[in-house]
């Protein structure tokens, strides 16, 4: 009953390569999928749309960045800029009267094109220099957004997003918007789960480990870097568009500034490089942490009778956010995904753990 690995013997490569070699994992995924479907019934709509919905959308973004950073090993510090391209082109297309399905596609494709420009840097350099160039490109994108009234809808302005609609049906209810985010997140997750098992996924991992060595083995490393950037940018573009369409309801340059790029990368690192479950946990931790820390600090201050200034309270979440990143990298550089994997490996063989060594 406890020994989850009992009677699991793979006799063919096909069965060994199954998406869930252990039935317990599959059951857990099905359980959470059902929980996700039933969430509007279980969670009050205020919490649903202010916590669960952004969490799912950010998770999709984190998975996209994980594709390029965790799988293909290419540092990307301009992810928010790519999201901005998708968000703005989608909103503009939707305002122009194009149906949302096609508008999202336009957003994703235009992000892909711009995102592939980042990949041309990856042809020339890698590692630190790639990170710095993508960071510089993020600043260029910020500048373009704030300085071109045609894109941003005026100087210091926010672009109103039209009502979201799918198949001609306007979606305005809280549950409806939640299902849109949930559906997109599930779609990206399925894509990423399957990526591991395909030749593309293995090629990306080969490029990550050592691109020259991969090239010697016949993996065209530049082609795969380009594919990784284009695919992750597509995910980023659609995610950015959905973020605006279902959560912010208007697009503003600050929503896609450099600190957002760093935040998404922090989610990836804290979740664990190349870990899908970790992406969910990393996004949840980073999104929820500021509110929780603020509550803790103000209640502790009340308890002790210490008078904390507004300015102090405003900056404590930032300090805690930085401390969280630092502590995680010190304690477990592979992130929450690795922590979970350790627990899972232990429980998998639990009563008989002395047998597996």
């Amino acid at each position, binding site marked *: 009953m406890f020994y989850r690995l009992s009677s699991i013997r793979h006799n063919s490569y096909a069965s060994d390569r199954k998406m869930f070699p252990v039935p317990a994992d599959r059951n857990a995924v099905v359980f959470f999928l059902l929980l996700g479907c039933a969430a509007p019934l279980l969670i009050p709509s205020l919490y649903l749309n202010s916590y669960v919905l952004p969490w799912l959308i950010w998770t999709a973004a984190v998975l996209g960045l994980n594709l390029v*950073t965790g799988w293909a*090993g290419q*540092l990307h510090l301009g992810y928010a800029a790519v999201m901005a391209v998708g968000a703005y082109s989608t909103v503009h297309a939707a305002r122009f009267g194009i149906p949302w399905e096609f508008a999202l596609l336009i957003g994703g494709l235009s992000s892909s094109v711009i995102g592939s420009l980042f990949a041309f*840097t990856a042809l*020339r*350099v890698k*590692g*630190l*220099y790639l*990170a*710095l*160039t993508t*960071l*510089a*490109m993020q*600043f*260029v994108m910020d*500048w373009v957004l*704030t*300085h071109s009234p045609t894109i941003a809808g005026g100087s210091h302005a926010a672009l109103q997003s039209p009502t979201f609609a799918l198949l001609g049906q306007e979606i305005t209810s809280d549950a409806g918007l939640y299902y849109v985010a949930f559906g997109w997140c599930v779609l990206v997750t399925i894509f990423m789960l399957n990526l591991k098992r395909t030749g593309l996924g293995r090629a990306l991992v080969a490029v990550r480990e*050592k691109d*020259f*060595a991969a090239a*010697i083995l016949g993996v065209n490393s530049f082609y795969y870097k380009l594919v990784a950037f284009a695919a992750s940018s597509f995910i980023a573009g659609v995610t950015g568009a959905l973020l605006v369409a279902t959560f912010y309801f208007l697009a503003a340059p600050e929503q896609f500034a450099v600190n957002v790029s*760093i935040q998404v*990368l*922090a989610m990836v*690192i804290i979740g664990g*490089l190349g870990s899908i479950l970790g992406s969910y946990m990393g996004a949840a931790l980073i999104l929820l942490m500021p509110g929780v820390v603020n509550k803790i600090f103000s209640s502790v201050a009340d308890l002790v009778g210490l008078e904390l*200034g507004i*300015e*102090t309270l405003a*900056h*404590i*979440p*930032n*300090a*805690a*956010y*930085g*401390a*969280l*990143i*630092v502590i995680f*990298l*010190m304690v477990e*550089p592979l992130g929450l995904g690795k922590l979970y994997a350790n627990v899972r490996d232990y429980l998998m063989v639990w009563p008989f753990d002395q047998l597996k060594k």
Partner: protein
Amino acid sequence: MDWIFLSELTVNGALTGLLYSLVAIGLVLIYKSSAVPNLAQGALTMLGAYVVLAFSHNLGWSLWIAIPIAIVIMFFVGMGIERFALRKLAGRPIVMILMMTMGLDIFLRGTTLAIWGGSSRPMNLGVTYDPYFLGDMLLSRIHIVGAMVALALFVAIMLFFRTRLGIRLRAISDDYLASWSIGISVERGVGLSWGLASIVAVATGVIWGEVQGVEQSLSLLLLKGLTVAVLGGLDSILGAVVAGIILGVLESVGSFYLDDIVGGGSRDLIVAAVLILTVMIRPHGLFGRHDIERV
């Protein structure tokens, strides 16, 4: 075109550029010894300025006592950061090291502002704001002082690299495995370079705090410092100084012409463009060492 105006732009740009070099020198010191790109240098600069203010304004001590105290404190802060945060990550992928320094940047900024508050306050270094006339050119006095400090630090660091301790640092930078094998403590050397970079951060914080007030935006100097460091070569102190002058002149003269075309705010664009072009054309910078990778 008015030649006096153009030369004024050039000279002022070069002076500002030397102030950027201050940030870059801190970055280069750390990168040279341990190949860690310290994205927290901006936050260290800010912290340095706030620590100086904590003694000079809050306690009312003279600035000339506060600065040495801040230097000592920041030296140990830098050593401590290396000891507790970065040493564990040695040999890890660069993405983790980058994220660690970014996390430190966020943490230091948040902590500094939580303790001292974010409102801008003056450094009161005692340099007058009256412009200095060189012929017909108007120059800012604080920029001249800052440029002098940058050059003095450059000379001091160059001299330091000739001492016994400095030679050890150079050996570590050349080949840390070989240094280890002949009995140089690489850990202590890297810690020392973090301490030195933090001292440079105090100097940067004092000068820039005088230029633009002590506030959060001091940490934004990081991007300019990074650009200068990359342009000069991430492991070359001389490169940091030369590239600082180049970037300062480009930014000052370029933004004068570009602002009319693009409608203002082109300084950041020029900095980002210089960074991208440097990496695309000559990733190891003007004076940096070109590392050849083995498979």
